[in-house]
């Protein structure tokens, strides 16, 4: 059995006696007999490190890791530069608690301040928080930020990832907040339906859109922003941070709140987590921002330093009146994203965005040649939907070759994603297999 308790059984007994207890049973005298576990837990016996390693490695080996991944839909297979994990695994970062004691936590605090700055730069927004759990819960928190007594209805585009919508609905269930969806036309938010819905509802609080959207399309965010603001509501943009390497920023578009999943910024696939909830906002929303914020200040000698700030918004001060219950966030993931952004720099973030979108356009064009038609007419970033005579048949054929194909949306539609990790050769292989399967 492994143990992480330093004191030996003898030392434990002598400590017990030294402070006046006969036994462990005596030490736990406050716990009523009827509350205690009788006998042992029904768990296996403890194991040595080597035995545990073999069990866990055995479990890991029962999974199949795909060489080529053409599936995104909220989880993107990007290259993670060597420095990211090498640096973030330093135990001072890995094992520290939330930086409550600023004087010995300047390293953590400064790293988050730098993260906040990088996210603000990438999104073009004025402020960013220290992180939330993931992109979906960040979207739900942002919707909560927009609600007030007069405006309480949340509008969500039907072109938003259904997983994000599900979390938004779950967060809204407790308070009975109304969540309404706005239909799509040709795979993007139907602008006239949006205008109509907002015009008819003086209680509209916000509109949540995705950029690029679930189908990969870069929506006309300028027109959407104008429509939302015209109606007096706030615009929440859920973004892919890699796409912002080239796309017009939410700040330039006039978004009120930006959310997104920071997973593409060096976090790996990780079977869905831990990921990174990004939240950035305009200056006017600064005091409504949920979660931790790090601020710059000075110490008693006038030296620059960093602290957790604007804490009057938070649960440990405001309790039931807090803007959110969030306490632990995803600090280490935010650190990884910072290291990623520092490694690739302004040129690299643009380059990776260009690689993704160029390759996606290549694959879409090659698919087109064999009859897998791009379903929607809108401009796309690195995801796109094609038709397919039999989605299951094609995806299974690709899986047999170690290729994780796109996500099946229906029997005749597949959502593909291409990142910089997919080579031209991989794509040509994919097209060749597809051609064989569909007999084109």
């Amino acid at each position, binding site marked *: 059995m492994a*143990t992480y308790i330093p*004191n030996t059984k003898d030392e434990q007994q002598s*400590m*017990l006696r030294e402070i006046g207890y006969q036994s462990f049973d005596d030490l*736990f005298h*406050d716990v*009523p007999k009827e*509350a205690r*576990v009788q006998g042992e837990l029904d*768990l296996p016996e*403890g194991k040595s490190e080597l035995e545990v*390693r073999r*069990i866990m490695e055995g479990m890991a*080996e*029962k*999974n199949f890791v795909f060489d080529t*991944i053409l599936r995104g839909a909220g989880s993107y297979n990007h290259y993670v530069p060597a420095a990211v994990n090498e*640096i973030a695994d330093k*135990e001072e970062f890995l094992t520290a608690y*939330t*930086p409550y004691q600023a*004087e*010995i936590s300047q*390293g953590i605090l400064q790293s988050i301040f730098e993260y906040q700055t*990088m996210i603000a730069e990438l999104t073009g927004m004025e402020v960013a928080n220290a*992180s939330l759990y993931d*992109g979906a*819960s960040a979207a739900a928190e942002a919707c909560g930020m927009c609600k007030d007594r007069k405006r309480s209805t949340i509008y969500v585009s039907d072109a938003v990832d259904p997983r994000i919508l599900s*979390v938004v*609905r779950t967060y809204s269930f*407790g*308070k009975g907040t109304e969540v309404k969806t706005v239909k799509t036309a040709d795979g993007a938010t139907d602008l006239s339906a949006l205008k109509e819905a907002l015009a008819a509802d003086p209680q509209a609080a916000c509109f949540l859109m995705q950029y690029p959207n679930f189908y990969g399309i*870069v929506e006309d965010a300028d027109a959407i922003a104008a429509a939302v603001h015209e109606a007096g509501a706030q615009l929440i943009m859920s973004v892919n941070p890699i796409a912002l*390497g080239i*796309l017009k920023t939410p700040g*330039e578009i006039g978004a009120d709140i930006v959310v997104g999943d920071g997973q593409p910024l060096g976090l790996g*696939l*990780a*079977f*869905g*987590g*831990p990921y990174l909830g990004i939240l950035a906002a305009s200056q006017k929303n600064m005091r409504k921002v949920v979660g931790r914020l790090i601020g*710059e*200040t000075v110490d*008693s000698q006038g030296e620059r330093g960093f*602290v957790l700030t604007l*804490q009057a918004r938070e649960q440990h001060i405001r309790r039931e009146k807090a803007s*959110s*219950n*969030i*306490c*632990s966030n995803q*600090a*280490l993931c935010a650190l990884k994203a910072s290291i990623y952004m520092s490694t690739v*720099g*302004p040129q690299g973030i643009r380059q*990776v965005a260009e690689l993704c*979108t*160029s390759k996606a356009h290549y694959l879409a064009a090659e698919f087109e040649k064999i009859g897998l038609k791009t379903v929607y007419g809108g401009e796309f970033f690195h995801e796109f939907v094609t038709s397919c005579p039999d989605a299951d048949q094609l995806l299974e054929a690709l899986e047999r070759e170690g290729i994780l194909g796109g996500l099946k949306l229906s029997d005749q539609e597949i959502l593909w994603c291409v990142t910089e990790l997919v080579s*031209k050769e991989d794509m040509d292989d994919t097209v060749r297999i597809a051609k064989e399967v569909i007999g084109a």
Partner: protein
Amino acid sequence: MKLIFEKSVPGRGQQIFPECDVAVTLPKVPMRQTAPRLPEISENEMGRHYTELAKRAHGLNDGFYPLGSCTMKHNPRINEQMAALPGFAKLHPLQPEWSLEGALEAIATLEQDLCEITGMDGFTLQPAAGAQGEFTGLLLIKAYHTHRKDDARTEILIPDSAHGTNPASATMAGYKTVEIKSDEKGMVDLEDLKAHLSEKTAGLMLTNPNTVGIFDDNIMEITRLVHEAGGLCYYDGANLNAVVGLVRPGDIGFDVVHLNLHKTFSCPHGGGGPGSGPCGCKKDLVPFLPGRHTGEEGFRREAESIGDMTGFYGNFLVYIKALTYILSLGKEGIPDIARNAVLNANYMMEKLKAYYPVAYDRTCMHEFVLSLEKIHKENHVSALDVAKALLDFGIHPPTMYFPLIVHEALMIEPTETESRETMDGVIDAFIQIYNEIIDNPQAVAASPVTTPVRRLDEVKAAREPVLRYKFGE
């Protein structure tokens, strides 16, 4: 020290990505007008920057870390390596089920182990942290009452000693918080509880042992009273380290529980996350669990599910670490955690109470609370001053000014992974600080003096918020 942006030089950088092997084709949409001002820095300079930051942080191996209610125990190395295995770390969450046998086995094993440890019937691993686990549990309670058309239950009872996340979570779940007083022994005041139980009671949230480190020995009576009033009982697992393997929330009347795997189950805290906050419940509430989870009928989504808390399966790589830990310790090792956590806390309390009054002078569980109210009045040295003085000894201070029901509180939780001699050294430091309080209180109030920065101006930070670097603008 400089910010990374202040070390950036235009034109420097690292070449990570290859040239494009297909024609460059960009979408015909509006593009960003200016590049983001990300650092332009060599790998060497960047590495030194983060090493300098690491030196200005305090990890578990930098010294004693007795943050009360945070359970800063040792993070076993094997856990990290297992979570980094490609067979876990390189899985896409939307892979076909045939390719995920091991991941589903890991999830099923952990869910079953957590059910056994807590006495619950079902678990979701989807919540990303303790607070989200609380929110999940309250939504389960809400769904349960709603499903029974028992809609008039609008109140959640919460003791005044509770963590701030409890009332904040209750608000997010659409409940009104009703505060229950603690009695002079630090436990739930039974009369106050009875006075507030009614047909409006949806449930009670309780941390046991509570935040003053006391196991409420009326627990069977408390949960009985809540059930009698038609409410459900929620167990906040933040302090499970005190009783894990010895007491199961499900056996003492609790219907819902959340755990902090980054506390009791040894996952590292990452400087503020990622954590993992699984939520478990009794069978009547299982039909409402969020996400997909394992049960008798395999891996599936419940028909009456409240939905999803996060996009996929929660913080998978974090809970792989917890699974590794549970496998390592097993049925004998898990109760040993609690025994030694409680022993270490009582050992420190006994040695310190001659110098610093304890808020409740009785056997504690895994943590205890000192009150510096008297010292503050007589010697003009506050809990904050003592905390800052500890920094000069290389010791991370205890949790300060919490729980709110104790004035000038310092809450100390050594955990089971500290040795006797480490604790003796810390006790010596506390005594030296005590002597300084008597002899030279100004010196204590001026501490710390050895840290990279001195006491920071928090008022300025909040009054004139600077939340990002301005690039000299």
